[in-house]
Every structure is written in structure tokens, then in C-alpha cells.
């Protein structure tokens, strides 16, 4: 057991963890931040994506101890300070970019990282960036649309219907 201290969604937390505790388990079980999901065991699905020091990271591939001293952001910290949905979250709702919601936290966290890196991505860039996020429900169409809309691009002319 080792003591780790990190900032999670702006709040400092200190806990003792075992060396082999995955970041996902630390968030879900120790902090009860259950918005970060686990969809696979081979680091392929992206349901577990969080931000560590501003970078998108698959939390299932990281030990909690590695986050010692880091700034961590999870889906629970994405809404605006007044509790309203962030631009990306609101775009996902507006464009029906989620169905069962299981992949959604990872999608939103990936989208946020993409738009930070590339504020006006093309459709091809969005699709390419989502390589590591699997959604079984939506067929991605509305996720791609939501992310482009969140970047301020007009998606009304490319509606599916």
C-alpha cells in the first residue's frame, strides 16, 4: 500500500492504494466516481477514458499510483460550474449522440481532448480520432455530428434524414 495524492475534478484526494490497483477501480470503487466505465479487458473500447494532466488516457491501462501528483478529470467534472451541461455534453444531447449511455463518458472525454487539440476537426478527423472508442448503439453518425456541432461547425445541412 502506498499513499497517493491527486486532484480529481478540482478536488484534492489522498488515499492509500495497492501497487496493482487500476486507475479505473480507484475511481469507481475508492472514489465512487462510477461514470468511468469498463467495457473491455484489452484496452480497445475507450469506455474508461479520463484526462490525466490534460491528456486523454484509458484509465484501465494505468495504475492509480501512476497518477500520484496528477490533475485528473472524469466525466463527473465536465458539466459547467452551475451544473448545466458543457458545450460537448449539450451537443451530444441535442444531436442524440448516445443511446444506452455506456460508452458516453469515454466518448465525451475523448471528444473534449480532440477539440482541445484540434478545435475545428473535419469529419474524417473526428472519425479517425474515435478509433479507440467503441459504441455499439449509435452507429457513430450522431456522435460525429455532435462533436462537429460542439466545435461550432454547422451540421444542419448534413442531417441524416
Amino acid at each position: 500500500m502506498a499513499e497517493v495524492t491527486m486532484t480529481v475534478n478540482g478536488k484534492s484526494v489522498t488515499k492509500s492504494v495497492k501497487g496493482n490497483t487500476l486507475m479505473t477501480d480507484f475511481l469507481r470503487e475508492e472514489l465512487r466516481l462510477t461514470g468511468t466505465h469498463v467495457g473491455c479487458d484489452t484496452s480497445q473500447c475507450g469506455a474508461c477514458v479520463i484526462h490525466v494532466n490534460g491528456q486523454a488516457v484509458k484509465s484501465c491501462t494505468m495504475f492509480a499510483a501512476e497518477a500520484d501528483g496528477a490533475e485528473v478529470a472524469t466525466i463527473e467534472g465536465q458539466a459547467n460550474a452551475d451544473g448545466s451541461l458543457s458545450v460537448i455534453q449539450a451537443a451530444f444531447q441535442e444531436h442524440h449522440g448516445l443511446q444506452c449511455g455506456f460508452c458516453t463518458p469515454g466518448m465525451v472525454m475523448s471528444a473534449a481532448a480532440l477539440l482541445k487539440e484540434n478545435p475545428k476537426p473535419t469529419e474524417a478527423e473526428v472519425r479517425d480520432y474515435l478509433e479507440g472508442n467503441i459504441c455499439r448503439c449509435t452507429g457513430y453518425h450522431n456522435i460525429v455530428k455532435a462533436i462537429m456541432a460542439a466545435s461550432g461547425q454547422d451540421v444542419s445541412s448534413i442531417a441524416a434524414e
Partner: protein
Amino acid sequence: MPKDQGIGASTKRREDVRFLTGAGNYTDDINVHGQAYVHFLRSDVAHGTINGINTSAAEGMPGVVRIFTGADFEGVGGLPCGWQVTDKNGEPMQEPAHPVLAQGKVRHVGDPIAAVVADSLEEARNAAEAIELDITELDPVVDMKAAVAGGAKVHDDLSSNLCYDWQFGSETEAVEKAFAEAAHVTTLELVNQRMVANPMEPRVAVGDYSRANDESTLYTTSQNPHVIRLLMGAFVLGIPEHKLRVVAPDVGGGFGTKIFHYAEEAFCTFAAKACNRAVKWTASRSEAFMSDAHGRDHVTTIKLALDKDNNFTAVHTDTYANMGAYLSTFAPSVPTWLHGTLMAGNYKTPNVQVNVKAVFTTTVPVDAYRGAGRPEATFQLERVIDKAARELGLDPIALRRQNFVTQFPYATPVAVEYDTGDYHATMDKMEELIDVKGFAARRAESEKRGKLRGLGINCFIEACGIAPSNLVGQLGARAGLYDAATVRVNATGSISVMVGAHSHGQGHETAFPQVVAEMLGIDENMIDIVHGDSSKIPFGMGTYGSRSIAVCGSAMVRATEKIINKAKKIASHLLEASEADIELKDGQFSVAGTDKSVAWGDVTLAAYVPHNYPLEDIEPGLEETAFYDPANFTYPAGAYACEVEVDPDTGAVDLVAFVSADDFGNVINPMIVEGQVHGGIAQGIGQALLENCAYDENGQLLSASYMDYAMPRADDLPNMANYRVDHSCQTPCTHNPLGVKGCGEAGAIGSPPTVINAIVDALQSGGHKVDHIDMPATPQRVWEAMNG
């Protein structure tokens, strides 16, 4: 002007807020105080005799609470099968026992042998490694045709590996005559490969037990909590319903695979009582691959007969359908009643006969996966029609149109009666959306770039909203297939609707209130849906087969009608008018032809504070329940098209355009309906191009992770500019109150043959005499077809 609430409005989903903020409540998010964890030790061989299981070393390991094996479940029921098929000789299907933990033999990779319950998951896993197994390997049974020819038996107490040999539809004599007299016969052999549903949330079960009142609770990732309560309570564990609560909270997708009752659910419920401690199981993804029921896995020969004028005169099919090692809950119904009954398709073919041999193999059980039987039927029929058109030099669209059913109702030779439809309308829409006329120019342009371009089209019909209970009872269902809803109006006028349907992505919490709001003329936000908890809702058959709004929605309409009737009685009393004169509009009850009215909230308050109330005629309170048993299936239908570019050097297929024209009847929330179609199409395209659940000849599962099983990703699907989904053709269902048909499975049914038809068309345009490519059409398969 689109509506902003009620039926037909694209109301934004209220459930999204919790999912988008990480506040969802999925089963794995539930921890019961003091819970233990279970790890299942599963077979790593396909087939073997269990000579011994030595748990003594493992029992002494740290944290171990108790280790269970098949012996602990002797005297406990096995997992039941919910559908009995009768074979062509009138005999019931062969139905093997399905123990919770293996007894005597293991029958597929992943079959659970022992279960270790421990204080932590890590301790459970470590202890499982210390269990010593003595298993003698037996010959695997993988190939279906070999399995029925003889050799090793999956179940020693059955006479063979044949579950049933089923025949259905037109009489053999009539079919043979039609083929003998045909001007042309087209034959095709094809495989509908094994698929894994892969909802992104792996299955989870948490069993809990209360000594205080002898009650068991199961939290589980299920599409139908009441069905699980019934099956597990009555058939497996012998717990009466009033002592058993099943909760399916937020569920992360299902696609069929979370319909069924699984061993892990029964285990956790049983073990919680045995250990007097809650027991939790969370599947890893690799465990999901070897324990979730798989889908499809049919091998078929189909023959189509045409007369000299190109009218279809007969269809004959011979299918081998893989059941896997045991019968999953609804497995026997999928290749039979959900498949054979759709083999007429959109066509007025007078003779249709379907033959299905269901076969046991040493593989994971196979059951319903999105579409369940209907994708298999559509794939065969639409592929053989395309091949016939090519052989006869006919336009595939014209050949289909010529044979369309146009008079409704239409009784098919395969037992169902289509109530309504307009197949020319969806075909017209599809031709417009894909721009059939411009295809030649697009093909020429592709050819200039050295690519082969193909246009594939496809029509389909499905039967949804299963189904009249008396009919399915005759067909072997061991359950009724109605649904139920309770509308509870509170004193201040807000409403809770308890529905038997279960939402695991379909947006019921948004769409169902739209209907009630429309009927009452009140704000949608005054209405909440309650689902997924057997202790809160009257009863329910859950969600699958695109039935939620057609069946449960109809129950909700009926219950709301009862509410309106009673509320009008109260209003007539308050307004001192005759009940017949009371009208309800925009949440106001008024007396026809006068300006006298009372608001919705006044009436609801009077129902609960009945000071001025007709107590001699009606009871206080305002709550009504309805059960709805559908009169028929619903028959959504559509026409799909896509264009592909094939690289002749590599065999790579680029899906450059895709369009769908669906007829779902009336639509409650267009945004949600389109979302369902997007998802279905992606799964269908996944089947056509990417996904394959493969076993080797030893019965080892080769695709047990996302490294080996290719899930569709964002860049596997067509760009937004070349992709359209349309549901503007609407022939409302004639027998349910909303005129709705269901939209959940259409995409998965309609798209696989569309894609394969397009690939074959592309290859033919390059001079390759390729009649068929089995799915998934990987670059290697396409290249081999071109160069084979």
C-alpha cells in the same frame, strides 16, 4: 412546423442528462454492503468428461468464503428453455438439461465448472487457480453437418445431436410441382456467420438475500426483469415471485443477448442465500465472449423458382441452425418461428417451404441477436433474388417490384398475415435517395480511378411486436407475450407510468411520456416512466423484437384511456354536467358548447381529496392498469441501397454511400427512431464487412476479445454526406391503437444483403464471375473471390 411535444416531436432525451454527467446507475455501479465477489472457473476445452474437481487447496486460500461446484446444484433446477419446437414428425424437440454449474461434462469453452466466492475479486481469482481439475477431453463437435452425421454426442442422454428437424409452409407436393414446372431455378448456398451481440456493458449480477423476510433480490443487466424473475424463481431456484425481486437498472445495451436467463444470475441469487451475504459478478469482456449467447450461425441452401414471365413461383430452403451446447432461453424459436414465417419476404410467391435442422455443438449457446431469424431470412431471400436477376439479365429492382405484395391484408404461405404496407413507396424513396439514375456515371468515374463500383439494393419485411399469446402458445412458447402498464396519477396531477418494457438505450423515459402527454394535453415533464424493477411495476415481458411501443405502448394507451374515462366522471360531477358532454383538451375538462371547465389538476386533486366527489359511483384515487395482448404482429418493411468501391488489387471494400427507406407506420419520436436505424445499420454493416465469431476445429474460440473480433468503428461507416435514413413512407399498423410498428431491428435486417449485393455487383462489373461472398466480406475473401 415540427411539433415540440407529444406524438411526432423529436423531444430531446431526458435520460441523457444522467448518462452525460456520469450519474447513470448501471448494475456494476451497485455495491451491496458487505458483498462478496464470485469468480467462475470455466472450461478451457470444448468437450470433456469431468472426472474430479479438487477444491481442498483452494478452500484454504485467503479470503475464500465458499467454493461451489455442480454437486452443490444437484436437486436445483437447470436453466429452462422458454420455447418448445415440434419437429416435422410431430415429436417435441430434444431438450437437454442445462445445469447452473457443469455436471459430469463440460460442453463448450467457457462452460462454468466451479464458482469461488471470496471477500475480494482478486482472492476469488487466485483461489480459482488453485482448483485442480481432472478432465478427460472428448472429441469436439464443431461442424453442424458432421454433428448430425454421427460421431461424438454433445449430450449423451439424447439420441443424437439433432435438436429438431422442422418443416413449415407449403406442402411438399405443391413446392415440388412448382420447381418441376419452373422456367428458371436459382440456387444459392450461403452462411450467415456467428455473431456476438457485444453490448458495451458486460453482463453483471448482484445477488442479495434478506434473512429478515426470506426475500431474494437480484440486480442484473437484463432486458426483461420479470421474465428472469419467472424463469429463475419458478424453474431454477424454486423461489415464489413474492419472495423474489429482480431489478435491471440502467442497462448498457442489450441487442437480444440480455433477454436470456443466465447461469450467473441464478448462481448469485442462490449463493447469496447460501452464504448469507450479497454476491457480485461482473463479466470481463473475454468472459462475455464465451458466456453471452451468440447470434445467427446458419448454413443454408435456398432455391427460387420463376415462371417464364419472371414471377416467383416457389421458394425452398434447407437450413442448419447452430444451437450451441445447450438451449438458451428462446433459442429454438429463432430459426423457426422468427425465421420461417418471414421467408415470403415482400413477395407474393405462392409456395414457400422452410426446412430447418437445429444442431447441438460444443460451442457457446446461440439465441436471438438483433433481428433474430429475420436477418437470416432476408439475407437468403434477397441474395437469391439478386442472383436470379443476374442469371436472367433482369434489373434487380424491376424483378422485385414485379413480385411485390400489393394487396393487404395478405396471408402468406408461411402462416402470417401482413396487415398493411406499401413496398413500392419505400422502393421509390430508396431509388430517389441513392439516385439510381446517376449510378452509371458514378461507376464510370470510379473506374477511371481504377476502382470497381457496385450498387446493391435490398427489400425486407419483419414481424415485430411479438405477439398474440394464444398464437405463440400454439407455436410452442411457454410464456404469454402481452405487456402491461400502470398509470398512476398523483393528487397534484403529476404521473408515474409503470411499464413492463425495459429501456436499455431506446429512450423510453422520453418517448413514452410523449404519448401520455398527447392524450391528456398536459406537459411531458409532468410524466415519468418507471421501469426495470419487478417490485415497482405490475408485470412486463420486457423489450426485444421491436415490441416496446407497439405492445407496452398500447397497454399504456389503454390504461390512459381508463384514466380519462374516470377523470371525465369526476369532471362531470364537479361541473354538474352529463358525462357524455365532457371534453378533454389541452389539460382542461370542459362541457361541450359552454365555457364551463375544470383543469386537470382540479380533477386529480378531487380524486384524492374527495370532499365533493361521486363516492356512491366511483372510488377515490386515480390509478389504472392495462394488459395488452396484440392481435397480430406488426410488419415494418423497407428498401435499402448502398454503393461500394472495391479495390481490385487488394479486395478492400469502401462503403461509399448508404440509404434506407423504412415504413415504421406512425412514429412517436423521429429523432429516437432515426437513432435506432443508425445503430441497426452499423451492426448490419459490421456483419457484412467485419464481424465474425470463429471457432477452430478443436472448438477453441478464436475471437474472444476486441483484438480478434472486429467491431465497427467510427471510420468503418459511410460519411454523413452520403448517408440517409428515411421513414417518411408510413402505412400505420391497423391493429394497435398508436398505428406503430417498431424500428429497433430494421437496420440490422436490411443492411447485410444490401452490402453483399453491392460487392457482387462491383465484382461482376469487373468481369469477375462471382455469385456470392460469405460474410464478413473481408479484403482477403473478396480478393480470393476475384482471383479464385
